[in-house]
């Protein structure tokens, strides 16, 4: 007695641990196997629940929080009322990319739908067989969905996502009272912009905010300048790496921004890099900052600060730099994806169809700060400021967001390098060279 039970116990522990550990790794390393079994199981569950009338819980992952999140949840209630068999659970994921990728890697995600704003990532996931094709949803709306937004998530003839929200980065939002106080006109050209900046600076008002601390707003400003230097063609060519980051026209865009930064248009360079983007909204509303280049979602935030469009704040396109360059508006969206192994695929597909349709999108458009990718939503549903953005998009045309459509690993590099440029604007040539080196590496792979 003594040694034998002990050995048996040890062997039992080892076997148990190895089996348990194997179970844990199974999902991660053999996706295909899990995929088959898991999806089969999911379909069965979905059918059973439909026949037994037990509600199916569809889980949505997204990153819309605050007012936008509340608006979304209230819109989802409409769907729930129309579909008593479905309960929707919206989960705000502050680290959406991490959550989605980690759950996909396990082979059995716990969400049915994810709302992602990264088209390059969507395409990559689709090509790796992680996403359910959405062709049936797209076909159901036959030409009603904005083509540019669909193209961003299409590989061959397969749509790996469907856009449910569009946004645009139409131009510079400005404080009307600041301009009135100093008898200034909103700038139409680069020289006027510099002149306005000088006057604001002399009067203790920060001419423009950048939101540099969050890094991503810098790529939006850079894209606006790039379009005004070389038009949408240069923008698209750089996005696809058909032109180099060291191209003279790209360097010209860097140089213009360098001058603006050094002249103090974005405030004191030593503090500007510490400014968070959301913190600039109240500063614009109360006149501490005169101008701010930002997306159309800022309207809701400004109105929350108690200021009104037209009377308190206005919108202008980024000033003209090169008269011969065509203008275009950077636009993107939020897309709905369904994982291959989603627990309730059928119910998720039905919900995705509704989200891509005019009924849901009109509800959201009426709540402001939301542009509809479904063309059936009437212009009359929009708030005047949003309607202006939609009209500009039609008038000038749109281009995809450069960094969102760059290879996923290259996107943070663009942000980082532009941030380094903001901190040391004189280093722009060196930064462009570094960006080019990374671009060669990422676009090759």
């Amino acid at each position: 007695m003594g040694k034998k039970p002990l050995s048996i116990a040890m062997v039992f522990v080892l076997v148990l641990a190895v089996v348990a550990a194997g179970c844990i790794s199974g999902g991660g390393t053999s996706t295909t196997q899990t995929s088959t079994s898991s999806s089969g199981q999911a379909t069965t569950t979905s059918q059973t629940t439909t026949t037994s009338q037990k509600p199916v819980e569809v889980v949505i992952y997204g990153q819309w929080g605050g007012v936008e999140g509340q608006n979304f949840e209230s819109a989802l209630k409409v769907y729930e009322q129309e579909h008593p068999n479905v309960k929707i659970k919206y989960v705000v994921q502050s680290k959406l990319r991490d959550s989605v990728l980690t759950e996909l890697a396990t082979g059995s995600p716990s969400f049915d739908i994810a709302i992602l704003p990264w088209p390059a990532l969507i395409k990559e996931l689709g090509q790796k067989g992680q996403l359910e094709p959405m062709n049936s949803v797209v076909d159901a709306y036959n030409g009603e969905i904005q083509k540019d937004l669909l193209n961003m998530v299409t590989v061959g003839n397969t749509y790996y996502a469907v856009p449910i929200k569009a946004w645009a980065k139409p131009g510079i939002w400005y404080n009307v009272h600041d301009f009135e106080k100093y008898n200034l006109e909103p700038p139409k050209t680069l020289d006027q912009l510099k002149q306005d900046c000088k006057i604001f600076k002399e009067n203790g008002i920060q001419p423009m905010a950048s939101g540099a601390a969050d890094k991503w707003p810098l790529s939006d400003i850079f894209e606006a300048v790039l379009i005004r230097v070389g038009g949408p063609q240069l923008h698209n060519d750089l996005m696809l790496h058909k032109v180099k980051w060291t191209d003279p026209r790209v360097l010209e865009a860097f140089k213009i921004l360098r001058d603006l930064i050094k002249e103090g248009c974005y405030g004191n360079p030593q503090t500007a890099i510490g400014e968070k983007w959301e913190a600039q909204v109240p500063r614009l509303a109360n006149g501490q900052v005169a101008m701010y280049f930002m997306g159309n979602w800022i309207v809701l935030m400004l109105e929350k600060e108690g200021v009104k469009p037209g009377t308190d704040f206005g919108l202008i396109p980024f000033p003209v730099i090169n008269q011969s360059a065509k203008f275009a508006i950077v636009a993107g969206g939020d897309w709905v994806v369904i994982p291959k192994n989603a627990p309730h695929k059928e119910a998720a597909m039905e919900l995705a169809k509704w989200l891509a349709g005019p009924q849901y999108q009109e509800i959201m458009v009426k709540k402001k700060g939301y542009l509809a990718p479904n063309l059936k939503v009437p212009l009359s549903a929009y708030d005047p400021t949003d309607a202006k953005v939609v009209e500009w998009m039609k008038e000038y045309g749109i281009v995809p967001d450069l960094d969102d459509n760059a290879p996923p690993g290259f996107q943070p590099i663009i942000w980082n390098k532009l941030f380094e440029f903001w901190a040391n604007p004189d280093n722009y040539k060196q930064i462009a060279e570094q960006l080019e080196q990374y671009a060669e590496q990422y676009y090759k792979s």
Partner: protein
Amino acid sequence: MGGRRWLTKDFFILMMPAFILLLIFIIYPLFNTFYLGFTHWDGMTAPKFAGIANYKEMIHDPLFWTSIKNNLFIFVVFLPLVTLIGLGFAVLLHNKAVFGRNVLRGLVMLGMVMPMTVVGIVWMLLLDPHAGIVNRILEIFGVPPRAWIQDPSTAIYFVIIGSLWAWQGFATTVFLAGLEGLDTEVLEAAWIDGANAWQRFRYILLPLLKPALIVVVTMSAIYILKVFDLIYVLSGGESVPMYLFVLAYMVYYEIFYNFRWGYAAAIATLLTVSVFVFSLGMLKKMIGERGVESG
């Protein structure tokens, strides 16, 4: 003789739950990570064996070298500072003559009880270029406001300062425990023999505190080698600037932005090995010290 008498049946039965958990959550992932380091894996399709390709790639990866450089810089500056500050606070708070020393002890521990993400957020608020109190105070002395944690030339120092603030509570606690356990007669004897304050510290106190010193250095080294959360939060969470890359962040970056789980596993393995080698060396030293003491 009879040195392993504790290896009884009861010992194994009682240890079994802990052993199972250890095997599942520590030992298996450790070996699995080691294995994945030799594969090309995107986290979605099956891993493909790649030999030492990932390790070879590290040699040519500029981001890897930036991370190593930052890890080393933070390590070399942080380790002596946390030890000295911890020791200084411990000596001060051990002195019964210090007014309000119990309150001060509590304050010193504050950084230690806070989650690192909270520490990061507190520092971000303190150092905000427009609303942060640090810049407001500096302005009184004529220093213009600055974005200290975003500025490439100062950011790394604030990672060190933040880590020091958070971790010195641990160092102080360990040194305080060491001081409380000391035989005061030895120090009194040295004082009677005419040793001055420095001599008493250098030749009596410090050698007696060596076990505590080894614990502080080992644990602090482990903490700082795998520093991630503070850098992540201070950088705003979205994307850490390249000049602040450390190995632990690189593991995250390679997984979630480049889908190179195999390469990330190789970096994680390297990080684990370096932490392990350092800890092993220090533990050996500690066991050696104990051996000398008991011998």
